[in-house]
């Protein structure tokens, strides 16, 4: 790889030990993917440091101790506990206190302590052609596909790129890789973000690592719908970019989406395909459930308004645990708009910084035994997101009941599972 003088200075340690280690890692990454050089990035979504994994928070503390600073605007990914409000989730205090240490490390490094999987709802909005990095695949696919920024599906090195302002030029940072590989046509009406989540999950299963071009929307999808669709796609496949002509910059039509090449035959997506995803994730028998959850990915302000409207003046059924998860930023916005009062008065819990699959409910983590983490016995979780459904199965390892958002709220209000009406 060809390095600039400043990149060589960082690599040789003339700008501190932390940057040297970061550049060494990024150089090895660049060589692995035969990148010709580095590009300068304008935004990074970085690892929180997760208290449910051995010495993972310490990983971030070590960077902070070595003097690492964010060289670009950087938001922090979702964590394993609601740092301020952990009591409501039943998490052990020691876990919350360890997770809090990650917040201190990030404050020292100059990160924006968002602790969310939807930093864009908290004001992080990288524009068209901005090179960036993200440790969270939902953020990668939203920024690539809705904002036109350029990101690979990264891991830990997102923070190395944030510290140095550099990332190797390969993958989705190159326009030649930002081309459609499959064409889908939607032959059904869509109502509610869960339909879009199932649409994304279905398309992702077919597209795998490809770039799906999607046509046939009866009207322009809203931001929450694009977010849900992307999250579903990133979960079932390795999709990092989808193209909706006229929505995804800079693609105005299908021909541009395929780089001028002849588009392939289109694959129809029908109502039956969506119903199959709902059915795939309705494994809880008899409709009994322990928890109802909405807010995956973390809810936007508009979604908080929807929940408040559905819950205002009502009470959820006795001994029902109902979680609404969002970022601490949107939670604050909802509070100031008077929405939080309406939601919490119903008995619902508004949880930030984490969610059911990222908190101590998960069974595939490896916490320090001294933290006393005990995943509670959960048999079934009612969810309104195919992404949350998949990882509830994989990480909480229990049954799921997938339904629409309105139906999930009705389920919490009545105490009986309300399936998505076909």
């Amino acid at each position, binding site marked *: 790889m060809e390095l600039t003088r400043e990149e060589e200075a960082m690599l040789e340690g003339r700008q501190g030990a932390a940057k040297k280690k970061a550049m060494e*890692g990024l150089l*090895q*990454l660049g*060589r*692995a*993917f*035969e990148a010709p050089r580095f590009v300068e990035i304008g935004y990074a979504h970085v690892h929180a440091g*997760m208290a449910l*994994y*051995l*010495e*993972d928070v310490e990983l971030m503390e070590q960077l902070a101790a070595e003097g690492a600073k964010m060289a670009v605007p950087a938001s922090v990914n979702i964590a394993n506990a609601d740092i301020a409000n952990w009591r409501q989730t039943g998490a052990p205090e020691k876990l919350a206190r360890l997770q809090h240490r990650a917040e201190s490390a990030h404050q020292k490094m100059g990160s924006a302590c968002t602790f969310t999987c939807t930093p864009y709802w908290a004001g992080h909005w990288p524009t068209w052609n901005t090179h960036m990095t993200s*440790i*969270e*695949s939902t953020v*990668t696919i939203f920024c690539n596909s809705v904002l036109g920024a350029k990101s*690979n*599906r*990264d*891991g*830990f*090195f997102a923070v190395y790129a944030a510290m140095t302002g550099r990332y190797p030029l390969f*993958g989705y940072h190159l326009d030649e890789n930002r081309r459609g590989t499959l064409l889908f046509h939607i032959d059904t009406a869509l109502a509610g973000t869960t339909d879009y989540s199932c649409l994304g999950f279905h398309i992702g299963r077919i597209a795998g690592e490809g770039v799906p071009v999607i046509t046939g929307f009866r009207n322009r999808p809203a931001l929450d719908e694009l977010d849900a669709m992307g999250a579903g796609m*990133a*979960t079932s496949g*390795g999709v990092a970019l989808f193209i909706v002509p006229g929505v995804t910059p800079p693609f105005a039509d299908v021909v541009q989406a395929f780089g001028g090449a002849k588009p392939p035959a289109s694959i129809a997506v029908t109502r039956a395909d969506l119903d199959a995803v709902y059915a795939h994730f309705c494994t809880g028998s008899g409709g009994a459930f322990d928890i109802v959850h909405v807010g995956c990915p973390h809810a936007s302000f508009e979604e908080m308004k929807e929940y408040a409207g559905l819950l205002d003046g009502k009470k959820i059924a006795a001994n029902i645990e109902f979680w609404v998860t969002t970022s601490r930023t949107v939670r604050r916005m909802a509070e100031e708009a008077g929405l939080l009062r309406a939601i919490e008065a119903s008995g619902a819990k508004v949880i930030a910084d984490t969610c059911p699959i990222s908190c101590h409910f998960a069974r*595939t*983590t*490896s916490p320090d035994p001294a933290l006393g983490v005990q995943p509670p016995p959960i048999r079934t979780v009612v969810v309104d997101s195919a992404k949350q459904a998949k990882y509830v199965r*994989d*990480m909480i390892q229990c049954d799921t009941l997938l339904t629409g958002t309105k139906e999930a709220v009705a389920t919490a209000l009545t105490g009986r599972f309300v399936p998505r009406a076909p």
Partner: protein
Amino acid sequence: MSAIAARGIVDGTAKGPALVGAEPISFLGDVDIRTGRVVGDLPSLRNTSVKGTVLIFPYTRGSAGAWRFLYQLYKHANAPVAIVTQTVPDPSVVQGAILARIPIACEPQADLAALVQNGAPVLVEVKNGKAVIRLT
């Protein structure tokens, strides 16, 4: 002792018993961090452990969180000593392997699955984009 050329992805040298899988692996979900045991639905690797092995399989798949599981396998001393795949692993796995100092080679110039038995010692040497896989 035949030596097979391959493309180098993560530098390093490691030796260990081969563990050959026929299915793609997602380190998030398919392997248990605390034991190294394969828990995913991978018929060719049922009841095996990746701990200390030269793990040979077609390609990586799944979540961008894979780096964390590979790094946690290393933290729990349950990680493979080297990884060999057909195609380049996804960026998250490569980043986890660099962090955990696990050498990776890909695109071997021979059909390893046909040449290697599980348990047979394999030496993997990776440097500057070049890799050599020695079957003793």
